[in-house]
């Protein structure tokens, strides 16, 4: 610039320009369409920053890592950010609907089918196009976990198994979480009859005592971590965050975990994930395949949840509305809202939101457990 230093214009590539447009799209979706704005806006801005050349935000210059690289290395590579986001999620989660109806835990587990289904499909696609795609078992696991619809878990697992894919899998997970109201209804309609969608469920859940709420996070942490030890960072923080709330004696900690701490982590996570989406790493055929596989994983998870709910109806006296199985994804509370809306359309007397929250919360536990299983076998 004026012979004083090098401006970035000359270094701008077509790839950077495409990525700047993608950054604009993510920011637009977040602000104008209010799709997961707390995530898409920081991710979009991270994409924008890293695709302005010579800024050095994700590079090592004179032995010093750039600002966002430092955040990425300190927060994502060390797994601190996804694990502590689970602390905040735990503080924001009410396990009441799940405790009132424990069989919804099984629906949350069944909906993880999409994760393992997409894992196999990813490998088959990699095998069909070996020159075009390099998808090994670790990469397939990272792609499959998108089906759980859980951003922090996707980041956590991808960082461990296939760190090069972290930008793509995270964006796919968060984008599809925002698109749940568009992706799920056609699948629900295809797999249920109008009569099934109209099945009435009593609006009142069984009452849950304080003692039950206190015992749940402790019991869940002990059982799950003993059985799937590698899920400990996520499940441990999730249950600890919840205990802070239900204990009733650590209000200040619960408030910080659910608000200020969570917000700080969300900013750092969004920016550093976005910053991992440089033109060189994102503009590859692999990205499109991962985005496509993400939809397959989401659809399969939704379908598995519904079919499992229908199967359960064959054995239980008081029938459940099979749509609540579709809420077995971790996308809280979007998947529950979809079920509530469709339930009211089919039967205006139905109020399914709280019933759907059970499998929805179970989905978070299920996805973290599935990630722990992947790590246990492959990590």
């Amino acid at each position, binding site marked *: 610039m004026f012979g004083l230093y090098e401006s970035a214009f000359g270094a701008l590539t077509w790839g950077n320009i495409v990525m700047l447009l993608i950054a604009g799209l993510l920011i637009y979706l977040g602000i104008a369409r209010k799709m997961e704005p707390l995530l898409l806006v920081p991710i979009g801005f991270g994409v924008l920053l890293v695709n302005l050349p010579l800024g050095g935000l994700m590079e090592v210059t004179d032995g010093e890592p750039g600002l966002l690289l430092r955040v990425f290395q300190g927060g994502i590579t060390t797994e601190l950010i996804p694990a502590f986001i689970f602390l905040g999620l735990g503080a924001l989660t009410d396990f009441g609907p799940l405790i009132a109806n424990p069989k919804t835990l099984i629906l949350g587990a069944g909906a993880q089918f999409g994760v393992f289904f997409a894992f196999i499909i990813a490998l088959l696609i990699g095998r069909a196009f070996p020159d075009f795609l390099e998808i090994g*078992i670790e990469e397939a696991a990272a792609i499959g976990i998108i089906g759980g619809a859980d951003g922090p878990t996707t980041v956590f697992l991808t960082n461990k198994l296939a760190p090069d894919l972290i930008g793509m899998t995270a964006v796919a997970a968060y984008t599809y979480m925002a698109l749940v109201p568009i992706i799920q209804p056609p699948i629900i309609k295809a797999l249920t009859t109008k009569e099934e969608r109209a099945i009435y469920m009593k609006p009142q859940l069984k009452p849950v005592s304080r003692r039950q709420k206190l015992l749940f996070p402790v019991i*869940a942490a002990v059982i799950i971590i003993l059985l799937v030890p590698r899920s400990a960072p996520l499940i441990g923080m999730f249950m600890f965050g919840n205990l802070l709330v239900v204990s009733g004696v650590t209000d200040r900690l619960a408030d910080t975990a659910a608000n200020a701490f969570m917000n700080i982590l969300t900013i750092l996570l969004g920016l550093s994930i976005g910053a991992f989406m440089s033109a060189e790493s994102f503009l590859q055929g692999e990205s499109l395949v991962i985005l496509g596989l993400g939809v397959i994983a989401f659809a399969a998870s939704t379908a598995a949840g519904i079919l499992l709910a229908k199967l359960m109806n064959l054995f239980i006296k008081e029938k459940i509305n099979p749509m609540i199985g579709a809420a077995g994804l971790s996308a809280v509370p979007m998947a529950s809202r979809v079920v509530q809306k469709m339930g009211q359309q089919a039967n205006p007397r139905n109020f399914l939101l709280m019933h759907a929250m059970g499998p929805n919360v179970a989905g978070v536990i299920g996805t973290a457990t599935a990630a722990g299983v992947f790590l246990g076998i492959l990590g």
Partner: protein
Amino acid sequence: MIDWGLVAKVAGAGFGVTILVLTLLAIIVWLVSLVTRESESQGEEKK
């Protein structure tokens, strides 16, 4: 070269373990609910 035996193990056993863990948790939560309700109702009767 992909080890398809490992793939089958990850997909089949992985999904199976996920189902098993959450089913076990569901049973334990149900049992704990029964016990706590019982003890709470006994406590109320004593009062």
